[in-house]
C-alpha cells in the first residue's frame, strides 16, 4: 500500500487505533479513487465500525491521518462534511418522527431538495410507512429509511456500516444498483459488511481487519 496521498480521491495513511487494551488496527493504509469502493471485512469486534468512525472524522486515530482530495479531513471539516454521507449501525432517525420528517430535516440541514428524499423513499418501498413514526417501523424498513438519507444527500463519498443487514433480497438488490450507479458517476464508498459486494473486481478494494494483533 503506497502511502502517497491520492490527489483526487480518499485515502487513509498509517492509521492506528486502540480500544482499551486491544490494538484494533495499526499502520493501516489504503486509498480509493473515483468510482472505487473499499470493502472492510473482518470478524465481529475486529474494529470495522471504529475504522468507519475514524474515516468519518468522528473519532481521532492514535496515529495516522485520513485525507480527502489530498488534504487532511481535520483541516477541511466543512468541505469533507459536504462530500460525506454516513450511515452507522443506528440509522440516525428519531423514533418519534416519521421517515419523511426525518429525511426532510436532514435535507434542510444539507440544503438539498426534499423532493429527492420522497423519490428515494418510494424507490426503497417505504411509501406505505412514510407516515408512521420510525419506532413503528421494522428493522429492515428503518435501515431502508437510513439509506434513503444517504441517497438523498448526493454525497461523493458513502461510508456505510453493514448496509445490507436486515435488508431482504429486493432491498439488497436496490441498494447494490444504487451503489453501482453512484460509483459509475465517479462516486466512492467505504463499506463494512459481512456480505460480498458484487462490484466489478477492478473497482473493489478489500481490506480485512482482525488479523493484525
Amino acid at each position, binding site marked *: 500500500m503506497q502511502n502517497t496521498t491520492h490527489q483526487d480521491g480518499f485515502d487513509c495513511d498509517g492509521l492506528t487505533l486502540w480500544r482499551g487494551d486491544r490494538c484494533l488496527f495499526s499502520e493501516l493504509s489504503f486509498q480509493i479513487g473515483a468510482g472505487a469502493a473499499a470493502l472492510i471485512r473482518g470478524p465481529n469486534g475486529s474494529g470495522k465500525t471504529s475504522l468507519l468512525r475514524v474515516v468519518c472524522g468522528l473519532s481521532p486515530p492514535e496515529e495516522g491521518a485520513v485525507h480527502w482530495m489530498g488534504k487532511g479531513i481535520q483541516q477541511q471539516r*466543512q468541505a469533507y462534511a459536504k462530500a460525506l454521507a454516513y450511515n*452507522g449501525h443506528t440509522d*440516525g432517525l428519531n423514533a418519534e*418522527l416519521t421517515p419523511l420528517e426525518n429525511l426532510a430535516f436532514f435535507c*434542510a*440541514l*444539507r440544503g438539498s431538495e426534499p423532493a429527492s428524499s420522497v423519490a428515494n423513499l418510494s424507490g426503497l418501498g417505504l411509501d406505505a410507512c412514510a407516515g408512521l413514526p420510525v419506532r413503528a417501523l421494522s428493522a429492515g424498513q428503518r435501515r431502508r429509511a437510513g439509506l434513503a438519507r444517504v441517497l438523498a444527500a448526493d454525497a461523493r463519498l458513502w461510508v456505510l456500516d453493514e448496509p445490507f443487514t436486515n435488508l431482504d433480497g429486493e432491498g439488497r438488490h436496490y441498494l447494490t444498483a444504487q451503489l453501482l450507479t453512484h460509483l459509475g458517476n465517479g462516486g466512492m464508498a467505504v463499506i463494512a459488511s459481512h456480505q460480498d459486494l458484487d462490484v466489478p473486481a477492478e473497482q473493489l478494494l478489500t481490506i480485512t481487519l482482525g488479523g493484525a494483533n
Partner: protein
Amino acid sequence: MGQALLAVVRRDLRIAFRRLPDLASPLMFFAIVITLFPLAISPEPTVLREIGPGVLWVAALLATLLALNTLFRSDFDDGSLEQLALSTHPLPLLVFGKILAHWLISGVPLVVLSPLLALSYDLSLNTLQVLALALLIGTPTLSLLGSVGAALTAGVRQAGGLLALLVLPLMLPVLVFGARATTLAATGQDPAGPLYLLAALAVLAVTLGPFATAAAVRVSLE
C-alpha cells in the same frame, strides 16, 4: 445558516410535542417541590413570604436539571447526534438550536408557571412580575450551562446524579442573583442590580456556551 438553526429548533419542538409526558414531568416536579416546603416549614404567610423566592428558584434549578436528560440522550442513542456532528453547518450553531428548543419547552413554561405557584406563597404582584422577569433572563443560562453537562454525560448510563454534581455548581451564580432579585422585590426594594448581573451571565452563557457544548458533544461521540 439561519435555515439550519430553524430546522433543528422545529425538529426538536415537534419531537417534544409528540412526547407530552416528557414535556410535562419537569413542570409537575417544579409544582410538587414548591408544595413541599409549606408542609415542611410552616403555612404562616410571613414565613412563606420570606422563603418564597428562594424556594421557587431552587425548584426552578432542579426542574431544569430534570429536563436536561432529554436534551442529547435520545439523539445520542439513535445516531442523529452523529449526523449533526457530520453536518456541513457548524456544530455550535446546531447545538444552540437544540438548546434553544430545550429552553422553549422547559424554561419558558417555568417562567409562565412560577408566578401562579408563587401566589401560594402570598407574594405581591410586583414580586411575581420580577420573579417571572428574573426567570426569563436566568433560565437560558441554566439551559446553556446544563447542556454542557448533558453532552458530557450523554454516553453515560444512569447519569442523573453525576449530571447534578457537574451542573449545579455551575448554576450557583444564577441561583444567587435570581433569588436575590426576587427577595429584593418581595421586600419592596429595587431589584435592578441582580437583574443586570443575571443578564450579564446570560450574555456570557449565550456567547461561550454553545462552543463548550459542541466540544463536549464531539468528545462524547468519539
